[in-house]
Every structure is written in C-alpha cells, then in structure tokens.
C-alpha cells in the first residue's frame, strides 16, 4: 500500500468524511528566555480533525486505509493558546511513515471521545493523558489515574502546575 502524505490524507478525508478536517491555525508556543531567539509560530503540516469526528476518522484510517497499528497518543499543553493538542500516530503493518491525526481541545473543558472501545491499545495511552493532563476521555471503560495515586489532586504535566513546594510533604505534622 502506498504511503499517504498528509495532503492526500486531507483530500481523501474531505471527500469521505465531510466536516472532519479542520484548517490548522498556527500555534504560539511560549516565549523562550529573553536572550534567546524570538519565538516563531508553529504551523503544523499534519491533519487536524474535529473532536466530534475523531472516532470516525480513526476507524476510517484503520478500516479503509489499512493503518491498523495505533502507536502513540501524545498530549501537548499550549498554555499561551489556551488549548491542548492530542497527537495520534498510526502505522500500517507494511511499513513506512506514520499518519498523524491532531486534535485540539480547550484547556478549561478538555473532553475527547475515547478510542478504547474500538481500539483496546489506546487504553493506557488515554489513562496516562488523563492522569498527567486531566483530559477526560468520554466512553473510556476504566478512566482512573495510572501513575499518581488516586487521591492526588492536580495534573502534573500541565505547564501551569507548580514546580515548587509539595503540599503532600508535612501535611500530617
């Protein structure tokens, strides 16, 4: 199976799944230190899908295009833009580069449809994203913290999580 480029993927998805593909706006990554170079806007070349169409788009990749292997789900916190970006990475078993689906959700209401009912391999990826970023995966069968203990409060990988001080140390004394 020939490898699809992001442009070809967008073309085919626009044809077969109307409304799923969004136009990607450039992201403003946070400013580097004052002595560093000026921050540039980050314009992704990957396919941005609407959150409501995620499951349909992922199943389209798997069942129609043959990208059966869900390798990775990464979350990036774009604090300056007020959104989370989720990066889904799919491969075919024939080899070659990945097809990437990106998804943007607002930071104050991060809810995403879960892929776990269709793709059990997404289970731990989504639990990790929930644990460290506080993203709710609607439809996940067992959305519990995976690294931190259940009573922990806060989302440690968010950019605004305090890096100093620990309310858990010395709380009982």
């Amino acid at each position, binding site marked *: 199976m020939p490898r699809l480029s992001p442009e070809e993927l967008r073309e085919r998805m626009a044809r077969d799944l109307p409304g799923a593909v969004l136009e990607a706006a450039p992201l403003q*990554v*946070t400013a*580097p*230190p004052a002595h*560093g*170079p*000026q*921050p*540039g*806007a*980050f314009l*992704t070349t990957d396919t941005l899908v609407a959150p409501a169409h995620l499951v349909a788009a992922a199943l389209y990749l798997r069942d129609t295009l043959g990208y*059966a*292997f*869900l*390798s*990775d789900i*990464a*979350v*990036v*916190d774009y604090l300056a833009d007020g959104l989370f970006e989720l*990066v889904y*990475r799919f*491969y075919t*078993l*024939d*080899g*070659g*580069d*990945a097809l990437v689906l990106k998804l943007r959700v607002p930071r104050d209401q991060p809810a995403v449809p879960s892929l776990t009912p269709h*793709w*059990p*391999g*997404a*289970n*731990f*990826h989504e639990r*990790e994203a929930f644990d*460290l970023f506080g993203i709710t995966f609607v439809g996940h069968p067992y959305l519990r*913290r*995976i*690294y*931190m*203990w259940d009573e922990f409060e806060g989302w*440690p*990988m968010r950019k605004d*999580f305090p*890096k100093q001080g620990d309310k858990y140390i010395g709380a009982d004394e």
Partner: protein
Amino acid sequence: MLKTEELQINIGPQHPSTHGVFRMLVTVDGETITDLKPVFGYLHRNHEQIAEQNTYLQNMPYTDRLDYFNSMANNHAYAMAVERLAGIEVPERAEYIRVLMVELTRILNHAGALGFLINDMGMWQTQLAFGMREREKILDLFESASGARLMCNYFRFGGVARDLPPDFLPRLKDLLIALPSFVDELERLLRENEILLQRSEGIGVLPRELALAYSVTGPVLRGSGVPYDVRKAEPYSVYDRFDFDVPVGTVGDVYDRFLVRVEEMRQSKRIIEQILEQLPDASGGHINPKARQNVRPPVGDTYARVESPKGELGFYLVSDGSGKPYRYKVRAPSFINLTPLGDMCRGYKVADVVVILGSIDIVMGEVDR
C-alpha cells in the same frame, strides 16, 4: 458441586517475580484467574516533566534510566529525535558504531530476559547465571567504549561520545566466536526441557488480532505471528544495508516469545558480523564536528522511533526554538506491552501469572517513568 466464591488478591508490589515494584490486582475463582488489573506508578518520577526543565543534552543521561537494561537503545532513539528536529547529520562510522552498540544491547537484554523468565518458572539460578555471564562480557565492552557498564550515556547529537578504543574490535571478535555456542547451549538446555514446556506451551496466548488491537510491539507482537520490526518497517540509521531475518512465532504463547528471543540473538550476531565487514575506518570521524551539543532546534515537532529490545521505543519532541524541549514524550514499549496482561492471564492459573509477566519482559524504570 461446591459453591465457590470469587476472591481478590494482590500480587506485589513487593514480590520477587514482578521485576520491580509492580502490583497485580487479581480476581480468582479457586486457582483460576477471572480478572487481572495491573497497578503501577510506584517508581513514577515524572520523567517527562523533569526533561522539559533540562536542556536537550542534559536529557541524554536521563534516557539511560528509562530502560536501565538497554541504555544504548534509549540513547539512540533520543539522539535520532533531536537530530531530526535540529537537522544534524551523522557520519557513517558513527552510525555503524551506534548500530553495533544497539545490537549488542539486544543480545544482552535477551540473555538476561530469558534467564529471568526461566527463573520465574522455578528453575532456579543456573540459566540466569548463564545469561548473566554472557551479559557481563558485553558490559565489559560497553565499559571500555563508554566508561560505564549500565548507564552508558554514549551517544551525542551527530555521533557518539568517543571512538572505539583500540582493543575493542579484537575483544568483540573473541566474543562473537564464543556467542553461538552460548546461544546453542541455552537453546539446547531449554528447548526440550520438560519444565519449560509444561510451563510455557499454550500459556498466556495472545492471538494475532488481539496483539494488533492492543498495539503491543517487539518480541510479544512477533511471538503472535506478526512480522513487524521497526528495523525493517521503517529502516533508520544504516539498517537497510544489513541482511537479517525477523523471526515470528505461530501461536503467541510464552514458548513462542521465548523462541523469538533466542532467534533474535542469532540475528543480532549476523548484523554485528556485517558491521565488522563494512565498518568505515576512523578517518570518517565518530562525531559530526559541526554538530553543536547545546542545540536550539527550530520551532516544530518530530517523532523518532527505534526497535528497542523490548519493542517500539519512540520520542515525541516539540521545540519552541529555545534550548529546552517544550514537550518531551516517551512512547515506552514495556508500558504499552502491559495493556493486554489481563486478557493474557484470564483463564490460567495463579502460578502462570509470573511466567506470563516474565515473557512480556518489562522494566519498571520505563513503565513508570
């Protein structure tokens, strides 16, 4: 018919067969497992958050501590990700040295993993000592090249930290002469062994479709009969120049995963022999002299993956143009390979759990991050 009651028990976190601090919440009906949930995070140190506070180069020794059995493979994936992000070229000799080190790592990982697996089955110590003896020889080589046995920290952006010492290649050749007899002996000792057959054949079966749906990688996926290997699927470094086979299993049980690992050691040896034939001389340099180690990659994102001995190891990096990664994500193979553990154990006996877990070959440093 006696009425039985379901019982929940914890295996771990402090248990010698869990390869670290790992807990399994097991529901049993008599001796039979009806449900199993892995619980972990005891070694969680928010590795990714730490990495985002460091410069790119400062993270290199941190990657050693992910999968502390295979620090060279972790270095390789991270170095590749940063090189892609910053557009750094790697000289040919450095690529060969990298592949050489990673293939040696694969041999030592499988030697150790098989030893531990058979230890878990109750065949105490002998096979583990066999594997560890072989592993020591390779660690000696790592020490002579990088200065450290386990936390090698040997890779740099654009190459490796220093060239091979003069006595490295003769010692490697000696090791390669002794290696086939070790692998053959290990296989002969175990392949027909009654204990191993009883404890592994038909145990922990992961069918092909389920293995794919659960996105497991590495020997677990290949044991289930899927010939997927990142070295073949998306050849990186100089892997496209070597001739090697991807061994696969048929049933997907513990025994198949065992055989796949034995065969992978032989294939790694084949690759190393081809490296020795093709290795360019030292005039090419072991590192790109133009490569800056305090990199400031342009704004963008990248993902690089390698076939680590445990599966697909990937790094997803986002750069904001500064000297520190804006986002640093590890796709850890041991972590994802644990996803189907519940399905693999369901229906088997309690004593099989440690064997099935041993056959996945996890390292908690990488699972918990």
